[in-house]
């Protein structure tokens, strides 16, 4: 043993408490170096063993251990030492080196150490511990195998080995790798990553690719489980582990290597387990049953998905014993469970409790907690059980309790009658409502036999069903039922009897709930009654039905009759009342007699009679009575009532009209004839024969066309064909006939087709009015008028060319010989010429008025126009000392030709000024107003006035003057009147000599 060795052992001994604490297990070796002679070092046995040398053998003496360190790594050691020397505290000696195992491979070893100093303070020794890094790397202690041994091992545990080039995609695998999936290595050649991926289960591929990508990015080791397709087609589960084992020149990962391990068996079991677990979960989930487990040895708690749901915690919630208990509502609930659990841990037991928990959401709910304890070797190892949400169930039960209280309250205060009936059909208890309904006290009711107060009909009808309730065949029964009250009156009820059971399901008593529906029932009854009646007849539209209640002597009317009679809905008249609706006299007598006979002898009837409704409407009706007469007794008496006023009146009117028509036809002043469809005159009246000069008999041999003027035949034919083509119903025409004596007769003819009910043509009726006289007159008038117009035109146009020539010639003559002006003849001719020109001008104006109007009528504001006119005569008014007052409504607009209105206003104004009363202050007042469709404008003055008796008819004539005024020309009023009339208005005058005149002009009001 060298000195250093002794020194080393002494150090270990000294430091033994430390090393013991560390445990030799943790450390892979200790070392001790002489710094003066670095090759001189001491290692402990463990370190030597690690490096593959026998601790006892001598060979270690001969081995320079420094030579075992990778020579490149020696530099690291020296650098670390130097670094450590400068500041031992800040830079501890801590270095990773590779040491060569005796068998040739390298081990990664971490050396940690410290310097010790000699007496004079020089660095003397470096010592420390060694930890094998590879061991920590994969967690399993690597054994130093020879290559062969390694291969043996690999083959022994069936490890598939592979490696692949990331860049090129080339891959290598061993036999085992290939066998695992049923191939030989040769079969897989050339093996590439692509071939490999093609064998991977599609569902697992993504995960695999991701792990390898991750490996390339982050290096380290990856582990992944996936499926590969066996040559035979089934899937093989592979556990794969791999890492980057080589890098390219740039230092990027290049080669990935690893191993495959067949884990199919394990995986299949795992899968099955998962499947069963899942199945259990699912079934529990369906039942809302959660599973819980407390492993007392591991002190871990497991809650299934449903359990977590019940507690409203998230899926990833990690439960603990204390935590679980905290969910239970504090107090009695929690204490009970704690006690039970303590008990269960002591001895095997089962418990089943209903408790309230407060879930993590703060919801308080009822759960059922089932627990079991499992023992092994007298020790409780596990508590497990189920938990179920029973909140809904529990709540229902609680509510039942609440209901009972509510029910008690209801019972006492309900307006509905309620009573408890014993199983022996005795009334046990009745509420005030019930008592009130029957009119008995509770005590009286308790002694009462209900059969006595039951309506026998209803009892028979319902007894079976009620009995079923009593015998328990049905839980309840609802029925309409009549009882007699204490006062003897009938009460209609809607009753509900239900059985009350105890917890064992036995009937303890019955509850009878009674609702008074008397009123409703009565309504229902009458409805039923009416519906029944209606059913008896076959849908007769618009016909009312009535039925007499013979015993009561009243009649029931259907809504139709009620409406017709104009009475209230619930009107039930007595027979006397019924009679009163019929018209007094024969009508009323008839109905009365018929009804009495019907009841007495069963005779039906059918009458058309007049009736009067309460609204005063008198109408014709048809009343039909039907009886069911059995054994000489009228059992039933009913019938119909129909408003046939329209038909009756129409029929009666028709009869009258026919008579009227006949009379009219015969004696009318108008000629009338009936033509068949060919135009043959079938019948002619007296006037017709008079018009045409033929006798009735002669007429019958003629057709319509024989008597028509040849020139009018065509248009008559056209109209008739239109009539027959139904384009029109009738026509009116002015046409000519030929009188028997050959004279032309002008007539207004209206012809209409007469059709039967089916719309077929029967004949024509022609009315002929002789208008020969009138026609003559009109013709004359029109001609006259035309002549006048022509005359006016001739005057204004043709005559004018002559007068203009005369005046031109006069001008020329005057030019040629200026002295001619002095000639008396010439002077007079000149005057005549001028007058003639004026006259023609006036005439033209009149002619033009009517033609101009229609195109230029506009809405004119009266006030505006009056103001304008007044303004234009301002100076004239001033000179003549005339005051003008305007009282015209500003909203009065008239339809007028603006120029005419202007001229009319001016004309009246100047007239009023012109013909003022000398020496009197002249006043003119304008007022307006509305009369019918007109706005009138009144211009009133206090001037000379006009003697209307004398001049009235001539007032508006042409060239009429009534005063000796120098400017009076007799044109103004004439033109004004023409203008006003052309605009659809009129002028009215009121006047009194020496007092004044009022011209009222009526013009069409804009609003009309």
């Amino acid at each position: 043993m060298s000195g250093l060795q002794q020194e080393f052992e002494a150090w270990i001994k000294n430091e033994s408490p430390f090393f013991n604490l560390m445990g030799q297990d943790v450390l892979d070796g200790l070392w001790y170096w002489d710094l003066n002679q670095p090759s001189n070092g001491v290692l402990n046995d463990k370190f030597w063993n690690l490096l593959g040398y026998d601790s006892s053998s001598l060979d270690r003496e001969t081995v320079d251990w420094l030579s075992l360190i990778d020579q490149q790594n020696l530099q690291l050691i020296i650098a670390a030492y130097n670094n450590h020397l400068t500041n031992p505290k800040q830079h501890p000696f801590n270095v990773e080196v590779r040491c060569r195992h005796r068998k040739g491979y390298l081990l990664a070893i971490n050396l940690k150490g410290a310097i010790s100093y000699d007496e004079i303070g020089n660095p003397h020794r470096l010592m420390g511990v060694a930890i094998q890094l590879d061991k920590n790397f994969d967690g399993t202690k690597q054994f130093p195998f020879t290559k062969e041994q390694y291969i043996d091992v690999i083959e022994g545990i069936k490890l598939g080995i592979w490696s692949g080039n990331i860049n090129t995609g080339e891959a290598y695998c061993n036999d085992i790798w290939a066998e695992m999936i049923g191939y030989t290595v040769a079969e897989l050649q050339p093996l590439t990553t692509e071939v490999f991926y093609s064998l991977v289960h599609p569902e697992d591929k993504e995960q695999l690719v991701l792990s390898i990508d991750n490996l390339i990015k982050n290096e380290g080791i990856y582990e992944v489980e996936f499926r590969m397709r066996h040559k035979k087609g089934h899937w093989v589960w592979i556990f794969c582990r791999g890492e980057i084992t080589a890098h390219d020149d740039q230092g990027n990962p290049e080669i990935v290597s690893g191993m495959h391990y067949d884990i199919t068996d394990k995986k299949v079991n795992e899968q099955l387990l998962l499947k069963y677990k899942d199945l259990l979960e699912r079934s529990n989930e369906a039942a809302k049953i959660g599973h819980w487990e407390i492993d007392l040895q591991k002190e871990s708690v497991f809650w299934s998905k449903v359990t977590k749901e019940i507690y409203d915690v998230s899926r990833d919630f990690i439960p603990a014993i204390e935590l679980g208990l905290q969910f239970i509502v504090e107090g009695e609930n929690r204490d009970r469970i704690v006690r039970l659990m303590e008990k269960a841990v002591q001895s095997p037991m089962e418990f089943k409790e209903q408790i309230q928990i407060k879930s993590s959401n703060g919801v308080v709910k009822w759960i059922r907690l089932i627990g079991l304890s499992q023992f092994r070797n007298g020790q409780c190892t596990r508590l497990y059980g189920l938990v179920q949400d029973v909140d809904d169930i529990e709540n229902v039960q609680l509510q039942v309790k609440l209901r009972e209280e509510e029910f008690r309250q209801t019972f006492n205060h309900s307006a509905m009658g309620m009573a408890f009936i014993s199983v022996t059909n005795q009334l046990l208890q009745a509420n005030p409502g019930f008592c009130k309904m029957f009119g008995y006290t509770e005590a009286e009711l308790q002694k009462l036999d209900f059969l006595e107060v039951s309506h026998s009909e209803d009892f028979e009808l319902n007894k079976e069903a009620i009995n079923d309730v009593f015998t328990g065949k049905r839980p309840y029964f609802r029925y309409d039922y009549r009882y007699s009250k204490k006062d003897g009156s009938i009460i209609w009820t809607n009753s509900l009897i239900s059985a009350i059971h105890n917890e064992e399901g036995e009937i303890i008593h019955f509850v009878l709930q009674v609702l008074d529906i008397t009123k409703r029932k009565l309504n229902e009854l009458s409805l039923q009654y009416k519906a029944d009646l209606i059913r008896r007849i076959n849908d007769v539209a618009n016909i009312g039905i009535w039925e007499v209640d013979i015993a009561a002597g009243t009649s029931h009317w259907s809504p139709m009759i009620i409406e017709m009679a104009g009475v209230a809905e619930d009107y039930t008249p007595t027979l006397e009342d019924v009679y009163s609706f019929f018209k007094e006299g024969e009508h009323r007598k008839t109905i009365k007699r018929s009804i009495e006979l019907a009841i007495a002898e069963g005779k039906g009837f059918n009458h058309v009679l007049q009736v009067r409704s309460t609204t005063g409407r008198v109408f014709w009706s048809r009343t039909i009575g039907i009886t069911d007469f059995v054994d000489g007794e009228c059992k039933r008496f009913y019938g119909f009532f129909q408003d046939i006023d329209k038909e009756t009146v129409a029929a009666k009117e028709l009869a009258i009209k026919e008579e009227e028509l006949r009379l009219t036809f015969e004696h009318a002043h108008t000629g009338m004839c009936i033509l068949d469809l060919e135009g043959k005159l079938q019948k002619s009246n007296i006037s017709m024969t008079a018009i045409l000069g033929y006798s009735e008999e002669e007429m019958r041999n003629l057709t319509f066309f024989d008597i028509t003027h040849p020139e009018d035949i065509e248009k008559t034919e056209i109209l008739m064909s239109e009539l027959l083509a139904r384009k029109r119903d009738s026509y009116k025409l002015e046409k000519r006939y030929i009188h028997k004596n050959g004279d032309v007769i002008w007539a207004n003819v209206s012809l209409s087709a007469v059709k039967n009910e089916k719309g077929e043509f029967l004949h024509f009726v022609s009315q002929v009015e002789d208008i020969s006289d009138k026609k003559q007159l009109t013709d004359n008038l029109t001609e006259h008028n035309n002549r006048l117009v022509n005359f006016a035109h001739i005057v204004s146009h043709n005559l004018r060319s002559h007068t203009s020539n005369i005046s031109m010639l006069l001008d020329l003559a005057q030019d040629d010989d200026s002295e001619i002006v002095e000639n008396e003849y010439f002077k007079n001719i000149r005057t005549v010429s001028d007058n003639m020109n004026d006259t023609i001008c006036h005439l033209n104006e009149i002619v033009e008025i009517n033609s101009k109007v229609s195109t230029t009528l506009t809405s004119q504001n009266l006030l505006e126009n009056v103001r304008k006119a007044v303004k234009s005569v301002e100076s004239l008014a001033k000179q003549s000392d005339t005051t003008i007052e305007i009282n015209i409504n500003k909203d009065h607009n008239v339809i007028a030709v603006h120029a005419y209105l202007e001229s009319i206003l001016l004309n009246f104004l100047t007239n009023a000024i012109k013909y003022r009363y000398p020496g009197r202050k002249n006043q003119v007042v304008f007022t307006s107003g509305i009369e019918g469709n007109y706005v009138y404008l009144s211009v009133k003055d206090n001037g000379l006035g006009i003697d209307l008796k004398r001049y009235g008819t001539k007032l508006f004539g042409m060239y009429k003057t009534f005063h000796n005024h120098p400017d009076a020309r007799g044109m103004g009023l004439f033109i004004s009147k023409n203008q006003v009339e052309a605009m659809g208005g009129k002028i009215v005058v009121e006047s009194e000599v020496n007092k004044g005149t009022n011209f009222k002009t009526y013009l069409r009001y804009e609003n009309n």
Partner: protein
Amino acid sequence: MKTIKQVCIIDDDPIFVFGTKRMLTKNNFCSNIEVYTNGEDALESISLREESNFPDIIFLDLNMPVMDGWEFLDEFSKLSKKSKVLLFVLSSSIDSQEVQRAKTYDVVYDFIEKPLTKDKIGVLINKLGIEEL
């Protein structure tokens, strides 16, 4: 100022023509006056001429035999060389509708009510800026 060389009167009324001719010459309105008694004769004569020989002014009557004034206006409107000519409708009609109608023709310069008087000629001379002869 422009001078009026040629005036054309289209009228069937000899008295009017006589008077007008006198009136025009007396008032130094123009030197040459041609007269046609209906529209057709006038149109026939005018339409054959060179533009330079067109009358400067036409006085047109409306009521004439053969071709009346309206027809003449229709035809004359179709002639391309009409623009320089000043056409006056001279009529004894004072029917406002006729006046309006006459004014709808582009070729009509104005409507003059008969008779043509000394005053009217004076107005015309001023209006047209005609140099008196």
